[in-house]
């Protein structure tokens, strides 16, 4: 039963990874940008919420609602200033540009907030501490459930948006052929900017969950990026539902790995990631050949 409970906790953890990965998946799917600053943007979002909580004294949830428009604007501006220019210079340039952005964000956060560890768990009310014990030793925390429900809602809403609305079609059309999209009257610059704005807003949601479920500091970003990246790859690059399932698979692998040994949790996630890479992307034959 502890195994079953561990798997359940893995689903909750994985939903959190999926939210972190969602924006990464959007930016790769629409613009083929691998945003290496994604984790740092999530942490930046957490700090924006933190600042609002400190100054206005409101609950973390209200502070997050206030931070959201700030992050949307930030994403839009990030696209039209930095990313758009770097995209013109080929596929590798955005990788370098976002790598640089990652360092800039980390150092600015260090400068503004010191390297101290912070948490928003205290300002999120009873949600962070309540839980229910179910039959058979299963434990459901309120926060875990909220994260899972929000994750499913975010992915579901995105899916509906892309499949049913004209702006969603415009986004898919631009993702598939930006040149042809321009020729039918779609402003691809604006579509890209809104895609990044969405990605940054959802990254901030991921950062917010990080802040209320555990702790964060100015250099938490890269770790979050690795988990998000693994979730995207496990789920199949650029597929939305795949990213949700990939995040959950990663979470379950980590909590089951922790059953083997507490130190093995993160490693189990990495192993799953490697296995998926080998199986899906044709590395299997190379491994077999090397083994022979």
């Amino acid at each position, binding site marked *: 039963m502890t195994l079953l409970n561990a798997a359940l906790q893995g689903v909750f953890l994985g939903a959190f990874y999926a939210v972190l990965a969602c924006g990464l998946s959007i930016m790769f799917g629409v613009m083929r940008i691998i945003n290496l600053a994604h984790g740092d943007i999530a942490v930046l979002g957490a700090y924006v919420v933190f600042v609002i909580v400190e100054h206005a004294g409101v609950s973390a949830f209200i502070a997050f609602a206030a931070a959201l428009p700030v992050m949307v604007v930030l994403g839009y501006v990030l696209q039209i200033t930095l990313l758009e220019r770097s995209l013109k210079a080929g596929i590798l340039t955005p990788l370098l540009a976002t790598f640089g952005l990652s360092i800039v964000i980390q150092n600015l956060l260090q400068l503004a907030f010191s390297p101290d560890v912070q948490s928003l768990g205290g300002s999120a009310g009873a949600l962070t501490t309540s839980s229910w014990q179910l039959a058979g030793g299963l434990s459901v925390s309120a926060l875990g459930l909220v994260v899972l429900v929000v994750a499913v809602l975010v992915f579901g809403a995105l899916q509906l948006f892309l499949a049913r609305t004209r702006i969603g*079609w415009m986004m898919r059309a631009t993702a598939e052929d930006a040149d042809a999209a321009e*020729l039918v*009257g779609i402003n691809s610059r604006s579509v890209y900017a809104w895609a990044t704005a969405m990605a940054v807003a959802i990254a901030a949601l991921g950062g917010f969950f990080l802040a209320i479920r555990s702790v964060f500091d100015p250099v938490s970003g890269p770790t979050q990026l690795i988990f998000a990246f693994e979730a995207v790859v496990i789920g199949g690059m650029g597929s939305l539902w795949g990213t949700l399932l990939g995040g959950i698979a990663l979470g379950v692998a980590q909590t089951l790995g922790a059953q083997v040994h507490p130190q093995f949790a993160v490693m189990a996630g990495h192993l799953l990631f490697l296995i998926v890479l080998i199986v899906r992307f044709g590395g299997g034959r190379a491994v077999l050949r090397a083994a022979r």
Partner: protein
Amino acid sequence: MTLLNVEALDCRYGLLQAVRSVSLRVEAGETVALIGANGAGKTTLLRAVAGAHRPHSGRVVFDGVDITRLPAHRRVALGIALVPEGRRLFPSLTVEENLRVAASRRRRGPWNVQSVLEVFPMLQQRRRRPAASLSGGEQQAVAIGRALMSNPRLLLLDEVSLGLAPIVVDAVYRSLAGIISEGSTVLLVEQDLTRALRVAGRVVCLLEGRVVLEEAAGGLDRDRVVNAYFGLRRPA
């Protein structure tokens, strides 16, 4: 009335000069065929008019407005639509989504999903299927329909018969004849000379990026076109 006026247009891809000082007028209501061998600069010229290729120098004037620096999506709003070479549909979108996504900057006019499906009845059954699952002829019909959705004043067609079976090309041209007879202005690129002469009122022949022949389709004899096409007797 001159709808499109291209003045001394130069287009380059790096060091390669694809279009050399081309000047071209298209009157409202006219159908002009651009012909020429592969690499003559026809596609580049159309893309420059549509805004997909930024010219090196020269001007593109549409209905009296200089649009040389305008991005493609703003030209659609002014009434220019290009059916690009190779169709370039959005593969994961359905037929209907491909049409409706092109209506964001539509001008007022007769074309909507309904009237496009009436002109291309073979798409009626396919409207909820992804564009990638369609045959070549059906895809070409969607590409033309998608361009019509914006209710263009100038329709640019780039090799709509490329890669299609002759019987399908006939069907596509039958639909086009209907569209042209409704008074649209059309500038089309066509490799098939007979077809170009049949559908167009005027023929412009490009050779190595230059206009070498420009004449009404009616009085044109085939030998002169062939000479211009291959550059056998270059005009002085």
